[in-house]
């Protein structure tokens, strides 16, 4: 295995159960920049940062997926554990900062116990003590530290209280490491009885370190109450009660009937808000690129260079940057939902129906992320312990209507929207989403039936999920995460789009055949557009396109759409930019999609007067985009996540075939019914 860090670095590894405040602590400790790093040999991501320079300590800090035990059940847990052991050999000193939720002490200490008994140097960071105090329980850290035989520091991830104590503890441990060298760690297994014994120890520890905070009332009254058993003597019972507010909210959100209604409502709000909230920002981005285009064409004298800049680069990137706001909004909403604790409830509500088609409640979050982008979605599938369910989830994720399809749908739907009824657009988009969800479920069910031959099966399906206490989302964490995810997204998609736009421009512009257009009654603009048309007719793209014409004719389309469809295999959003390029958006005074729309509406098939874009062909195109796997990055990530070419190739062939056949049926079916 490739070493991640050089041997003389000190490493702080954050380890803790899910929802134990690990990420808040990481944000507190890390500097402004963090990087997502891939664990060698896999794509599991963990976060790496240098300890913030203001703390005057030289160390790297790692945040890995949450685990509840040193014996992993799912791929992401496996990586967290492997990182832990690999650092023992590759770095001079590793200190584990084990986050433990004080209000869940009796469950979270299991991992602490396992870590200590495996020989790691552990500092326990006790979080969420305020929640415990709200339950009228106090905790004696010193006593806990003595009983566990490791440093225990109370820390508040929101305010940063207790951070200085943690830093002192880290510093002491580092000095000790330097003096005594690395302690020996052993990888060991924990049987059923080991775990039960640990829990017996933990119960003794929690009983001795927790004390009930007595209300400040007269001692007599306490005594009297105690005799009447109004106040319980042991802290154990009050320690183990659930958060009252959470119980009340769940009475509604996990109600047997209301729960489902709220679930549908919440999902509905998410998807509509993506479009409503993003629209004004999208218009802004659009205007920005349009004016940029104007600037170029008015400052650079016409010729291939001006065409390269405005048609190749600005039109290409502009068509894509337009939908970045939607991605950001989707990430924000997902982050907020995750942070409040609702996503786990959603997973629980939907587990039963999903298990019927071979998926799992845990598939819910990856599938939901699939509506933003298939790449993070496939990576999120790592939290599914069962291999078959995980592979099936990855298999159908490309069918989730990702945000790259949005600009395509937005453009195509515009054909159907009458000027006076803009709401039809929203309605049609909703219909597309519902149709794509329904068809992906059907495909999942069919693949599940044939799963023995398609996906290697293994059966031990399980669903064990903690439903965390509801809390207000930490906006800063959500924003930070959104910023990094969106940036990563643009960095990944951006170069591909730019490169393809350039390539496509080259193909459509060269071999620069521009005939002399004579005509005294033509304006210079008209002459120029005639020249453009002639150049395009003779371009390489046109020659190439004629090869694929036979495949396009049955679905009522011509080679110009074909070229766009093929270039869309690099990334779906390229479809819009390449249509824009091919149908040559000549007027710059209006925004991109409107002018593109005009030139598309007037496009005809060959030399006939028959319109190219009719309701039938537009619907055919939409259907094609619902199914087709047109994204190279998705294929690449699918290969990585499934560990082979079998599944990505199967996805590519199956989904593209379905797309073509469905488009064929849609177009010809509609024509048969009299819809042109």
């Amino acid at each position, binding site marked *: 295995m490739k070493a991640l860090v050089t041997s003389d670095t000190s490493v702080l590894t954050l380890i803790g159960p899910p929802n134990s405040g690990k990420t808040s602590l990481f944000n507190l400790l890390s500097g402004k920049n963090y990087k997502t790093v891939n664990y060698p040999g896999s794509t599991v991501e963990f976060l790496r940062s240098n300890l913030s320079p203001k703390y005057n300590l030289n160390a790297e800090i790692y945040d890995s997926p949450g685990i509840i035990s040193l014996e992993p059940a799912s791929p992401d847990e496996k990586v967290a554990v492997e990182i832990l052991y690999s650092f023992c050999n590759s770095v001079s000193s590793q200190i584990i900062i084990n986050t433990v939720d004080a209000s*869940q002490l009796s469950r979270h200490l299991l991992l602490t116990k396992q870590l200590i008994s495996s020989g790691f140097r552990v500092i326990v960071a006790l979080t969420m003590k305020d929640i415990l105090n709200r339950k009228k329980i106090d905790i004696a850290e010193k006593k806990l530290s003595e009983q566990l035989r490791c440093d225990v520091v109370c820390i508040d991830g929101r305010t940063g209280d207790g951070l200085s104590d943690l830093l002192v503890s880290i510093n002491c441990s580092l000095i000790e490491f330097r003096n005594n060298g690395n302690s020996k760690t052993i990888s060991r297994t924990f049987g059923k009885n080991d775990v039960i014994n640990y829990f017996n120890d933990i119960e003794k520890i929690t009983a001795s370190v927790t004390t009930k905070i007595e209300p400040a009332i007269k001692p007599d009254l306490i005594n009297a109450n105690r005799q009447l058993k109004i106040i319980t003597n042991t802290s154990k019972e009050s320690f183990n009660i659930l958060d009252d507010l959470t119980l009340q909210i769940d009475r509604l959100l996990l109600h047997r009937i209301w729960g489902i209604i709220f679930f549908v409502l919440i999902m509905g709000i998410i998807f509509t808000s993506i479009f409503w909230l993003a629209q004004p920002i999208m218009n802004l981005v659009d205007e920005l690129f349009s004016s940029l285009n104007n600037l170029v064409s008015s400052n650079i004298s016409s010729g291939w260079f001006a065409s390269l800049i405005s048609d190749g680069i600005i039109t290409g990137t502009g068509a894509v940057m337009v939908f970045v706001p939607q991605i950001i909004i989707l990430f924000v909403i997902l982050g907020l939902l995750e942070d409040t604790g609702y996503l786990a409830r959603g997973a629980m509500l939907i587990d039963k129906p999903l*298990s019927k088609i071979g998926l799992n409640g845990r598939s819910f979050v990856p599938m939901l992320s699939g509506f933003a982008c298939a790449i993070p979605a496939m990576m999120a599938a790592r939290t599914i312990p069962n291999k078959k369910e995980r592979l099936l989830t990855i298999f159908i994720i490309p069918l989730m209507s990702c945000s790259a399809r949005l600009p395509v749908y937005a453009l195509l739907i515009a054909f159907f929207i009458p000027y006076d009824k803009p709401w039809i657009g929203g309605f049609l988009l909703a219909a597309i989403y519902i149709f794509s969800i329904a068809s992906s479920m059907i495909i999942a069910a069919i693949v599940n039936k044939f799963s023995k031959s398609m996906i290697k099966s293994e059966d031990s399906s399980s669903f064990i*999920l903690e439903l965390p206490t509801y809390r207000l989302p930490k906006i800063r964490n959500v924003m930070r995460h959104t910023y990094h995810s969106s940036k990563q997204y643009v960095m990944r998609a951006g170069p591909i789009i730019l490169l393809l736009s350039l390539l496509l421009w080259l193909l459509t512009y060269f071999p620069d055949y521009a005939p002399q257009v004579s005509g005294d009654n033509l304006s210079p603009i008209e002459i120029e557009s005639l020249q453009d048309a002639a150049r395009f007719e003779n371009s390489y793209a046109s020659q190439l396109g004629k090869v694929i014409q036979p495949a396009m004719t049955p679905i009522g389309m011509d080679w110009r759409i074909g070229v766009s469809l093929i270039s869309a295999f690099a990334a779906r959003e390229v479809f819009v930019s390449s249509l824009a390029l091919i149908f040559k958006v000549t007027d710059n005074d209006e925004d991109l999609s409107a002018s593109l729309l005009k030139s598309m509406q007037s496009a005809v098939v060959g030399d006939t007067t028959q319109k190219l874009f009719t309701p039938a062909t537009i619907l055919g195109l939409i259907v094609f985009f619902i199914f087709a796997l047109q994204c190279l990055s998705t294929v690449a990530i699918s290969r990585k996540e499934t560990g082979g070419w079998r599944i990505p190739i199967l996805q590519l062939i199956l989904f593209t075939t379905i797309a073509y056949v469905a488009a064929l049926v849609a177009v010809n079916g509609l024509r048969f019914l009299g819809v042109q």
Partner: protein
Amino acid sequence: MRTASELKFGEKVLITDIDESHPSHKRLIEIGFTPGQQIEIINKSFFNDPVAFSIRGSKIAIRVSEANCILIK
């Protein structure tokens, strides 16, 4: 012997043992379902499966098939 899947709302019982025949029995123990602990049913989903239990001050959702291997008094 009753199992946790037969619990009714409001019933608070102690776990006596965890059946080892279920493949995910170990995860159940690791997450806190150990003998001697008190559990209570808190929520059921629309299809009566999965079920949310209160255990050690946390709320854990598990499937009925998994609740079947939690033996109670």
